[in-house]
């Protein structure tokens, strides 16, 4: 597992090599003052004693006197056809329903649930892909719709037993795998609908071939829904424990057909035509797209317990917990001034204190954006329902101010009520997730990779 993490980290580092923006520059030289003198000196008429063959006496005198400055016009365009954050999928595949990962729909809903070991495994396999990236593949006389791409890392899981551990022959992992895809658009307006046959292979650390087709719907605020059908086969022999290589006779190869459904977040898809539209003129479908929102909060409940123990008699720290949203998008409803919105996040964590903690996958959020100042300082009252694996009803308000290009500063306040869930795995029950709770809170936070668009920009 450490090896997988190390290679994923290396992939993240390498992924910085792939351009996101293409820049065109035109340089202009502007002449403000020009008094250049260009003088042709003519041959002196008449005979001269220069021999039989002599050069012409013609010459040109140029006296340059001007004032100039250069002006450079820069235009920025997207350089990718697809740039993604996280893609996950759950596959129906052959085998017993008692085996498999049991990670639930999209490979997410039961990822941290105790149920994934014991429940009937509807989805026997999963795929997780990090940082997918695609550019135009210009071949076959510039045939349209071809892409070539890679990903920071991807992982195929098909566990052979009911344990939570990865076993030989149960996984394929690739760093910077190579994929060739062909797009057939069924709908060429946002959100796009397209069928994509693909052929891909990974060389390191697993060697595998992945062939199939996807039905893609998106991107809409970075979220995509995908249907998959394909076949993957390969070996993870390089991941064999080198210290036990002489006695490790396990079969590290795997092959299985799959059909399934997946989701991706922070995953942006462009048509080829959009590569020639400047960033500033690109269409937006979301009021807000955010990589991570992190709010440090203080629970107002008298039952709140700190995550870290304090000395007896010590004062309660100002911060008792946090609220984190990973990979969020907020969409305007298509009426009025488009300030009423709905939204979701890939993962939502509400941890007001050690005894007031819950999390969920793809919560449903609704709210209204009040513009306080200059269409930048916004107040957003919201209601949020987290329904699985825990139930949390959450109402609150957020005052946001964009800072720099990709960040926000927030002040938050609200109230949340969480229901007990005893199925949480991996020791999370120690955090009090097994008990119901309710509390108010106040806090401050930041948005990282948090981009706001005004309703006017979204309506454009």
């Amino acid at each position: 597992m450490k090896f997988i993490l190390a290679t994923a980290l290396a992939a993240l580092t390498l992924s910085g090599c792939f351009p996101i923006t293409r820049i065109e520059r035109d340089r202009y030289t502007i002449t403000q003052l020009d008094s250049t003198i260009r003088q042709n000196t003519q041959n002196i008429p008449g005979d001269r004693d220069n021999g039989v063959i002599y050069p012409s006496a013609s010459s040109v005198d140029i006296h340059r006197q001007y004032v100039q400055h250069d002006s450079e016009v820069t235009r920025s365009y997207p350089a990718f056809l697809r740039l993604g954050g996280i893609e996950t999928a759950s596959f129906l595949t052959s085998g017993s329903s008692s085996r498999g990962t049991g990670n639930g729909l999209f490979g997410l809903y039961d990822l941290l649930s105790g149920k994934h070991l014991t429940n009937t495994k509807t989805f026997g396999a999963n795929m997780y892909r990090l940082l997918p990236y695609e550019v135009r593949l210009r071949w076959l006389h510039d045939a349209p719709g071809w892409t070539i791409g890679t990903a920071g890392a991807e992982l195929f899981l098909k566990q052979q037993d009911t344990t939570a551990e990865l076993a030989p022959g149960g996984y394929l992992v690739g760093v910077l795998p190579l994929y060739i895809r062909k797009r057939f658009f069924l709908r060429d307006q946002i959100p796009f609908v397209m069928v994509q046959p693909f052929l891909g292979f990974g060389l390191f650390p697993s060697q595998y071939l992945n062939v199939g087709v996807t039905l893609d719907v998106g991107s809409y605020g970075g979220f995509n829904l995908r249907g998959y059908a394909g076949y993957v086969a390969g070996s993870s022999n390089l991941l064999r424990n080198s210290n036990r290589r002489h006695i490790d006779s396990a079969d590290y190869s795997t092959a299985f057909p799959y059909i399934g459904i997946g989701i991706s977040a922070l995953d942006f898809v462009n048509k080829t035509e959009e590569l020639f539209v400047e960033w500033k003129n690109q269409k937006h479908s979301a009021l807000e797209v955010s990589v991570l929102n992190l709010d440090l909060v203080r629970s107002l409940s008298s039952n709140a317990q700190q995550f870290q123990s304090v000395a007896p008699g010590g004062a309660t720290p100002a911060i008792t917990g946090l609220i984190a949203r990973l990979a969020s998008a907020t969409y305007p409803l298509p009426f009025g001034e488009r300030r009423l919105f709905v939204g979701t996040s890939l993962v939502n964590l509400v941890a007001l204190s050690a005894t007031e903690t819950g999390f969920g996958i793809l919560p449903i959020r609704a709210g209204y954006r009040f513009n306080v100042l200059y269409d930048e300082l916004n107040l957003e009252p919201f209601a949020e329902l987290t329904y699985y694996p825990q139930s949390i009803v959450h109402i609150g308000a957020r005052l946001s101010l964009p800072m720099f290009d990709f960040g926000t500063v927030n002040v938050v306040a609200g109230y949340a009520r969480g229901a007990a869930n005893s199925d949480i795995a991996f020791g999370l029950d120690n955090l009090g997730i097994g008990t119901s709770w309710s509390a108010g809170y106040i806090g401050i936070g930041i948005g990282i990779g948090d981009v706001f668009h005004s309703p006017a920009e979204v309506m454009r």
Partner: protein
Amino acid sequence: MTVSGRIYPRGIIPLVALALLSGCAYEKIGILAGRQGYDGETLTDYRDVEVRSSGIVLKPGARFAIRSPDLTQFIGRFDVAILSGDGLRVYMRTVPHLLDSTKGIALLYSSLNGCSVRTADGGVIPVANPAGRGAERLTFHNEAGLLSISIGCREIYEDYVDLPSTEYVIFEALPGSTVELRTVRFSDIYTE
């Protein structure tokens, strides 16, 4: 043609154009002339421009921009030949991005209707002699406000122009015409 201080006899390939892979960017053509490198870009369908050993051929309606990187003031020399049809048009002091072919300075190099220069204010200055069938050298002296245009040894236009100088010269084959660019040379006015 003099390239980098050496004399290349006419007829020996004076211009080498390479269709660089650069991610298989079909419309990009790298041009090497001596030690100088220029960026060529087809602004219409990439199939409209063909690279041959003798030069770069522009098919009817093709637009082709040549950029001299970081050089906005230059003496540009281009040997062109009309292979069939009428001729070509050359745009200066402009850029390919959002090129408006109806405005700005342009040279019409035509074998049927004669040559003319469209000035920055839209006026047209006709030139008596039409373009010839053989290869002819077009020279553009582009320095500060000065722009002079010569065809062969004959200067046909010289005036003060208040349009900013750019790195580009853009060629456009007239409808029904096929023309060939046989040499390309940009000289820095300060070292010429």
